[in-house]
């Protein structure tokens, strides 16, 4: 049936977009050890930048490229002052940064249309004359290709000497410095590249929804991303992709439960939403307590055990 096919395509596309988001996070945390809880901010920056630019007449690819570059550059705003900070300080600072970005987007209404969001903007394949189903398939393929490209780039980078320095920074930054590496520059690059990747995910998300508003970019998105990363095993790019698919797959499987089961029990949609996030929280805790290395992380490479 076409509607369930549509549904599956949607799940896969969403999982792919989030996978890209988390691949960027994984570069920052899994490989370099940078504790970033504000990742969603770069999604937002790139999404809004590219949407606004395309509305101003820029060709789609140029607008998207500009958005991605802007997201990468914006990360320096937080990276330059904050990367020296200890983990907990960095965590708080990055959350604060992301919330500030969201507040700005929410309030600078002339620029961003504020809480209303932006509805009609150019998306890919518009002039191809596709059916709705056709468009979704084409877009899904675009996302899969993008994810694959990001994956391959990251695999090459993390296996290179550049990636080796990142891993050493994660292990023991002082020792890395003592051996002559300018760790600050490497951390900034890791942050910038990871944020640019998050930007790409944000732009794809905007196209997918055909609608952006500040509520799409809450800290919850970052925490979901963290959960996927931890589930897959921080430090494993393959784990990220599998983790994302698993999460959205499982989540979608519970949908029928929602409509028939839970809603029948008299729960409102809001309550179901709250229940879902409740379970995410519990899951995070259980993961940290019993399997911090996730699915694909190796015990020796236990990223979270410091």
């Amino acid at each position: 049936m076409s509607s369930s096919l549509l549904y599956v395509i949607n799940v896969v596309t969403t999982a792919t977009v989030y996978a890209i988001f988390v691949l960027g996070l994984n570069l920052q945390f899994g490989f370099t050890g940078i504790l970033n809880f504000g990742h969603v901010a770069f999604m937002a920056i790139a999404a809004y930048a590219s949407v606004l630019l395309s509305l101003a007449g820029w060709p789609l690819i140029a607008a998207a490229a500009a958005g991605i570059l802007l997201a990468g550059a914006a990360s320096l705003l937080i990276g330059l002052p904050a990367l020296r900070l200890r983990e907990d300080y960095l965590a708080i600072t990055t959350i604060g940064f992301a919330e500030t970005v969201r507040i700005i987007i929410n309030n600078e209404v002339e620029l961003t249309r504020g809480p209303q969001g932006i509805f009609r903007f150019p998306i890919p394949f518009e002039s191809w004359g596709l059916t709705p189903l056709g468009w979704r398939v084409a877009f899904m393929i675009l996302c899969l290709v993008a994810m694959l490209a990001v994956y391959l780039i990251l695999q090459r980078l993390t296996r290179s000497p550049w990636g080796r320095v990142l891993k050493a920074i994660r292990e023991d930054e002082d020792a890395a410095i003592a051996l002559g590496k300018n760790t600050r520059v490497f951390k900034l690059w890791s942050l910038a590249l990871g944020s640019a990747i998050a930007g790409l995910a944000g732009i794809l998300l905007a196209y997918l929804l055909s609608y952006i508003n500040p509520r799409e970019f809450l800290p919850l998105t970052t925490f979901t991303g963290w959960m996927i990363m931890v589930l897959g095993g921080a430090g494993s790019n393959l784990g990220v992709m599998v983790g994302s698919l698993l999460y959205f797959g499982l989540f979608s499987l519970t949908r029928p439960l929602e409509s028939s089961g839970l809603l029948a029990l008299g729960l409102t949609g809001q309550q179901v939403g709250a229940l879902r996030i409740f379970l995410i929280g519990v899951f995070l805790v259980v993961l940290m307590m019993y399997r911090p290395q996730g699915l694909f992380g190796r015990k020796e490479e236990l990223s979270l055990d410091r």
Partner: protein
Amino acid sequence: MTADVLLDVRDVSRQFDGFWAVRGVSFSVPENQIAGLIGPNGAGKTTLFNVVTRYLAPSGGQIHFAGTRIDTLPTYAAARHGLVRTFQISRVFSRMTVLENMLFAAPGQVGEGLLPALLAPRRVARQEAELRARAEELLRYFRLDHMAGAYAGALSGGQRKLLEMARAVMLKPRMLLLDEPMAGVNPALKEQLLTYILDLRAQGITFLLIEHDIDMIMRICDRILVMAQGELIADGTPEQVRQDPRVIDAYLGASA
């Protein structure tokens, strides 16, 4: 027949919130010397070490290495100029393999740039192969080659010390600063380490060691610096230092 001065410490001081851990210390280490730094606990040896290796900034004074002033440079620059330190408790990268630890240390890697890593894989691979050959050779020298593929975290304490030294040598240092290399090490390994130090000196590396093992120091060092309460109280050959009344005082006083 004076060798060139490699490390030149001039009137260096360092304070922490008003407490002067190091005060007015001056000495210079000529090339190819094995110098030792001893003193009772709390004498300021580690602080001096940390200042010389740019881990800390001096509160006063200057440090010159191979003619260049280094106390104003960022920390990572010290190693780039050939001044490399090891740590008292070995800081190997546990979740990387022994070989990766070694490869990491090599200077001037083209693949450490983001763009070359991405766009010039063949050039990077070629350099990696060269570095790999050198790393394996060094591992053989330090008799760690059979552990090349193991995670550094799996090594024993003694093996870690050797790995740290091997890794430091990979950097092609001109001078090695060893922070208590014999600490917690069994007698057999001590002899090994001694041999390595002497052999590396013969290959041109200069040494400055902090040690508590007076026996070892006397055997291996050409020249000994003695610190007490932040100041340099003696500087001479092992013989001279052994008989220096101030040194005896400092040690007896400290243990009283």
